[in-house]
């Protein structure tokens, strides 16, 4: 075991970060890999800055032993009165000086936790705080990113509601769900945040993790919602919902479909110009993009180089406060992964729905709060294929991967039935919601046509980490052989009794250590 320790001086922004720099030099000397190094640097720097910003003095210890790196930062500071609050993204008590330097965004502790395999915080008001972060080397060396995906952190799982009906495990397009005796669990690296499990579960096990109560917006704020939200209230049509949103303080309401149409139009032009891989997949649905990155990596070059509609909407109003209603965990993850600034807020549909229901009695306004109609979609060319719904999208991507979609130039895909407005988080009955929207718009004067723009991506698409069996090709091949061997001894019923959606995935779980071979009740030895 190697132990290193560094002193940290509170309030000294000039030397701040030197302890972490010292740690980096030591870790590099003992040969710590890039993935662990990255996580260690983020966790250590954030913990060190906590001491500099809030405490008089502190110490950073790092212990490296076989299989793990333990970081511990103890300070003599004011302590934290409410740890849950301090762990919430955006909560901070940093001084004005620290904020001016770019600290105090309330992301320090969440960043440490996100980059730790084990995280613990111990605090006493008036005495100080001790933060412990453990990074498992064996796990981390296998990949280049934190062990969990942003989507899985946003997906809330209430295990106590589970009736073990197993519908969720069969609905998940990436095989990320398991239901064992202890309840459902998510293999975080595989979750793409598509909301299929939320739509499938009738017991309310799955949802969006709490993001705090709805706070009234600042004056002049813009709200961007899928139009299905405006027509998703049986107690009131879009007119009443718009009035309710106006009474809640929003100055302008825009529909997400404006930016979806802009991305499609851009993709259409690129496909016609012929300088992109065919079939081109515009990233209209961020869950589809994540699905391609995890299950269909050979199609990554086919993903169009634009931001998803919700990201583009966030870019549209640089000088205003913007509220984005996320229709699925993937949209949440997309926004949280982007350059979040103070002017952007992501809303939980359940929270906003609850606020709207309480305000539906507001008098209907004569105007439409700036609502615009998405630009008209030109008639699809014979080369465009539009597909929605998990099963159909999986099928068409499999065909694209094998090159069996001759003549198709563009794939317009969405994992929710009928696009974002069909999200199970927006309405219990999407077809009725669509009808309400159609009835409302057909009886109205035409809204101004949107000038929403597609926005180019800064980062290229890439294969999602954590999906491969092993980063080492030889080790992965060996694991694959063992999975194949084990799968041949299983009954092939794909019944789900073991908690996995198929015998092949159960075999994989056993080989990678996620399950015990005794989990299958139908093998000879377990009968």
């Amino acid at each position, binding site marked *: 075991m190697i132990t290193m320790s560094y002193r940290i001086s509170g309030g000294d922004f000039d030397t701040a970060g030197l302890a972490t720099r010292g740690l980096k030099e030591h870790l590099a000397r003992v040969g710590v890999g890039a993935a662990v190094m990255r996580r260690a640097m983020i966790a250590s*720097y954030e913990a060190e800055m906590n001491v500099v910003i809030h405490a008089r003095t502190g110490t950073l210890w790092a212990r490296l032993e076989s299989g793990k790196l333990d970081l511990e930062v103890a300070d003599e500071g004011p302590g934290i009165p409410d740890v849950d609050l301090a762990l919430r993204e955006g909560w901070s008590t940093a001084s004005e000086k620290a904020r001016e330097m770019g600290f105090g965004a309330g992301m320090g502790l969440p960043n440490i936790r996100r980059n730790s395999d084990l995280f613990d915080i111990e605090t006493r008001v008036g005495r100080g705080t001790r933060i412990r972060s453990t990074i498992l080397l064996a796990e981390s060396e296998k990949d280049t990113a934190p062990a969990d995906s942003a989507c899985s952190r946003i997906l809330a799982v209430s295990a106590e509601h589970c009736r073990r009906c197993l519908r969720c495990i069969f609905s998940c397009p990436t095989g990320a769900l398991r239901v064992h005796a202890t309840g459902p669990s998510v293999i975080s690296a595989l979750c793409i945040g598509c909301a299929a499990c939320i739509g499938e579960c009738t017991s309310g096990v799955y949802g969006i993790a709490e993001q705090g109560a709805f706070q009234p917006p600042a004056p002049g704020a813009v709200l961007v919602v899928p139009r299905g939200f405006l027509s998703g209230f049986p107690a009131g049509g879009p007119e009443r919902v718009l009035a309710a949103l106006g009474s809640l303080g929003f100055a302008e309401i825009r529909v997400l479909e404006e930016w979806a149409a802009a991305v499609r139009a851009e993709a259409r032009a690129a496909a016609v110009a012929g300088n992109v891989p065919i079939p081109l997949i515009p990233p209209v649905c961020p869950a589809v993009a994540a699905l391609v990155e995890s299950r269909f990596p050979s199609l990554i070059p086919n993903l169009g180089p634009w931001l998803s509609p919700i990201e583009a909407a966030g870019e549209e109003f*640089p000088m205003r406060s913007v509220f984005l209603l996320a229709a699925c965990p993937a949209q949440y993850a997309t926004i949280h992964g982007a350059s979040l600034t103070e002017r952007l807020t992501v809303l939980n549909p359940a929270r906003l729905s609850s606020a709207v229901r309480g305000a539906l009695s507001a008098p209907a306004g004569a105007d439409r709060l700036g609502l615009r109609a998405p630009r008209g979609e030109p008639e699809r060319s014979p080369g465009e294929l539009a597909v929605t719904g998990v099963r159909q999208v999986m099928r068409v991507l499999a065909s694209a991967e094998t090159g069996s979609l001759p003549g198709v130039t563009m794939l317009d895909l969405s994992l929710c039935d009928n696009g974002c407005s069909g999200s199970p988080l927006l309405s219990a009955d999407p077809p009725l919601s669509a009808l309400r929207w159609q009835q409302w718009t057909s009886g109205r004067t035409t809204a101004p046509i949107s000038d929403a723009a597609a926005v*180019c991506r800064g*980062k290229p698409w890439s294969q999602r980490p954590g999906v491969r069996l092993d980063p080492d090709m030889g080790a992965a091949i060996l694991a694959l052989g063992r999975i194949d061997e084990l799968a041949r001894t299983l009954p092939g019923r794909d019944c789900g009794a073991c908690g996995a959606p198929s015998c092949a995935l159960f075999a994989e779980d056993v080989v990678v250590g996620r399950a015990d071979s005794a989990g299958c009740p139908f093998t000879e030895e377990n009968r």
Partner: protein
Amino acid sequence: MKLSELALKINATLFPAAGERCPTVKGIHAADTMSSLIANASSDTLLVTSLNNNQLIRVAELMDAPGLCLVGGVQPSQELIARAREAGAAIMVSPWGLEETRRLLAACLVGKKQGRA
């Protein structure tokens, strides 16, 4: 794309890091908080920010970032430039604001101009 090419394309001034190396950039991350910058930094990501202080160099150094892009034509102090050189990070100064710089750099990296759809 080479950092020097990017600087040229957006009309930015470049203060290169020590040595002959001109790093290649594959992505950018724009933010005005340190937590966001460090959480998204990598060895091929250019960090774009409206901040201007020595802690930026520390973040670039810890995360092996190839460079920092300051915005709004803000001139970095000699001390900042010197520290960046020591840390092996280039400094770029964009005449544009944060959002505009991000858009322009993103458009350069995907090889086409961004425009209205």
